[in-house]
């Protein structure tokens, strides 16, 4: 359409739309939140309804270390975001490494917790309602952490090669948004499983 009347005052308007990557990631987060919500509802619904043991109170230990690490990783990734926006790439790589380390600690903590639950307490996904809902919900979250870890590690490796700079800040912003979401979900899961459900 090349023959649009040019005299309209709106022709010289500022035209800024939100970045498509952030919008897309936000939309994905909305959808994922709905999936988590369903698993959370199932968990809450089945609290106390087991026909057989073990019960949460008997076997669950609050994963303090893992939680602190995961929640701090939100801070570190925020620092990384700031660094890449301001083209401080060395800082970016360091903060990214910190985030990855904290996430790895969280996953390791979860792994040890599950090892204890499975081998010591004999709690598996098929043991009872608690087992089913616990491993599904926490496992779904852990899967999302793994995916995030994969994205972060890929970015880290690329930045080691020097291929990342401030032009990728919007892309990294989308990943960071995902990471914050994963942390927020952990707050919800932690509250439901270790505080309400025990």
């Amino acid at each position, binding site marked *: *359409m*090349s*023959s*649009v*009347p040019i005299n*309209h005052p*709106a*022709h010289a*308007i500022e*035209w800024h*739309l*939100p*970045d*498509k*990557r952030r*919008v*897309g990631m936000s*939309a*994905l987060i*909305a*959808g*994922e*939140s*709905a*999936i988590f*919500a*369903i*698993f959370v509802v*199932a968990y809450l*619904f*089945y609290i106390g*309804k*087991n*026909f057989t043991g073990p019960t949460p109170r008997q076997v669950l230990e609050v994963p303090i270390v893992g939680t602190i690490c995961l929640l701090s990783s939100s801070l570190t990734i925020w620092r990384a975001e700031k660094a890449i926006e301001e083209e401080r790439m060395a800082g970016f790589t360091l903060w990214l490494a910190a985030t990855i380390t904290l996430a790895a600690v969280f996953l390791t903590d979860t792994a040890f917790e599950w090892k204890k639950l499975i081998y010591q307490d004999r709690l*598996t*996904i*098929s043991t*009872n*309602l608690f087992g*089913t*809902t616990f491993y*599904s919900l926490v496992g*779904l979250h852990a899967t999302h952490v793994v995916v995030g870890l994969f994205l972060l590690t890929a970015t880290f490796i690329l930045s080691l090669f020097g291929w990342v700079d401030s032009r990728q800040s919007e892309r990294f912003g989308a990943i960071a948004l995902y990471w914050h979401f994963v942390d927020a979900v952990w707050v919800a899961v932690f509250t439901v499983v270790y505080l309400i459900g025990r």
Partner: protein
Amino acid sequence: MSDYTLPASSVIEAGAFASESGTVLERLHGWVVTVDHKRLGILYILYSTFFLLVAGAEALLIRLQLAFPHNSVLSAQVFNRFFTMHGTTMVFLVGMPFLFGFANYIVPLQIGARDMAFPRLNAFSFWLTAFGGFLLYYSFLGGAGLYGMGNAPDVGWFAYAPLTARSFSPGHATDYWALALIVSGFGTLGTAINIIATIISMRCKGMTLMRMPLFTWLLLVVSMLTLVTITPLTAAQFMLLIDRYLGGHFFDTQAGGSSLIWIHFFWIFGHPEVYVLVLPAFAIANEIIPVFCRKAIFGYPAMVAASVCIMFVSLSVWAHHMFTVGMTSVSNAFFTLSTMLVGVPTGIKIFNWIATLWGGRIRFTTPMLFCIGFLFQFLVAGLTGIMLSVSPWDWQLHNSYFVIAHFHYVLVGAIVFCIFAAIYYWYPKATGRLMDEKLGKWHFWLFVIGFHITFDTMHFLGLLGMPRSIYTYQPDRGWSFLNLVVSIGGLIQGIAVLIFAYNFVVSYWRGKVAGDDPWDAWTLEWATSSPPPVYNFEELPVVHSRRPLWDLKHPDDPDWEYES
């Protein structure tokens, strides 16, 4: 046809399509690897048309079996597979892909963009959906062999637990159902994300949200709704698979699990899903009705508000599918109220459409005829919906043929009618040729007559106590004659659809050349050639009102002077 020509059309070169030339294999390859939203849109539409014919054939066989009591055209097992596959196919492999296919084709054009926000995600989502459909139909092979219809799902399209548990559904039928829908569900999610990002972030200059065409607005609402609609189903299906394969107990009533929680989760998906299906039908009507009565849509801001309202309220009505499961009287009353309330913004839209027609100059072209059918039928469907929302009456009507009549009135009478309207309307844009009007009218009249013979009658079968999902019925129930009538109407619809399929295919080569703007319409897709070049627009447009082409055609009386 307008005698006003836009400059863009003359500049389209022969090489606007990269793979127009080349061997058959090269051209086919071009379609397989494409990330162009127009090609993907066409692929979605061809895919859904194929499954429309398949699921339609399933329906005709179902009606053949039910035309007479104690009939033996289909055995119980085969019938149960057919009605499950008919429903599952129509919702997931016809309805959703058609509507997302139109979205894919039309939305970037209407907002003056060159493509969707994430073209590769777009292609990936299509192929996921396609694979999901392939997986679902692969289920016909294996199991007890083709004449027993293999392993095709046979648990109803809503797959209630614990019927779907390993103990009651041994074999893989249920697994095919869950896996195919999980896969295609991810495809749907990808497309929804893509549409949202495209609409929010890629509108051309001057196109504020309140200047978007209503088609685009409604698809934004639909995509947002889809995000929280399809995902509960995916979650529930994961839970089902955990139960079936990892020994989980989500729906295992023997271990304290609950059948009710599946029902809740399914309908938390299932109800908004029908709004995901019907809102694009409104979107289509919003485009076609104004053009063929030559007036702007009446009450654009109200139409937007009503759509957003529907999106929110539709999330609160799901348990009207569950009035008979034994909820408390207070819960039943709540869901009765919320369901009646969601009828208000929906009804308002009908009033807006009538007000649009009022004072216009109505041209009864084929797309308009289908929209008129939609208006009458959606009115009736909405009213039978109100009847069903009255929970005591629903205690009689639930799971009867009255419900089947109601939802087919919406799915066929509203949605399929609008899909046909959309095809006749946008076919010239996508192919450069008009579909034949005479065949179109034959299609319309035969289809509308067959539709009413089938679905008007079906309401009475429900009132007479005939439940759904039964492969046969007793001759002493008084249902025999009406069932025969219903089946005959189905045959007539089948013939009409065949006429449509013929028109659809032959017009590609023999249709009248359309030009850029055969309908004298007002939105941006008509400002470029038919079909558009790969890059959509020579120059990205700048708009100042809701009907940019109206402004161009009426420079003395542009829309921006009237819009608030």
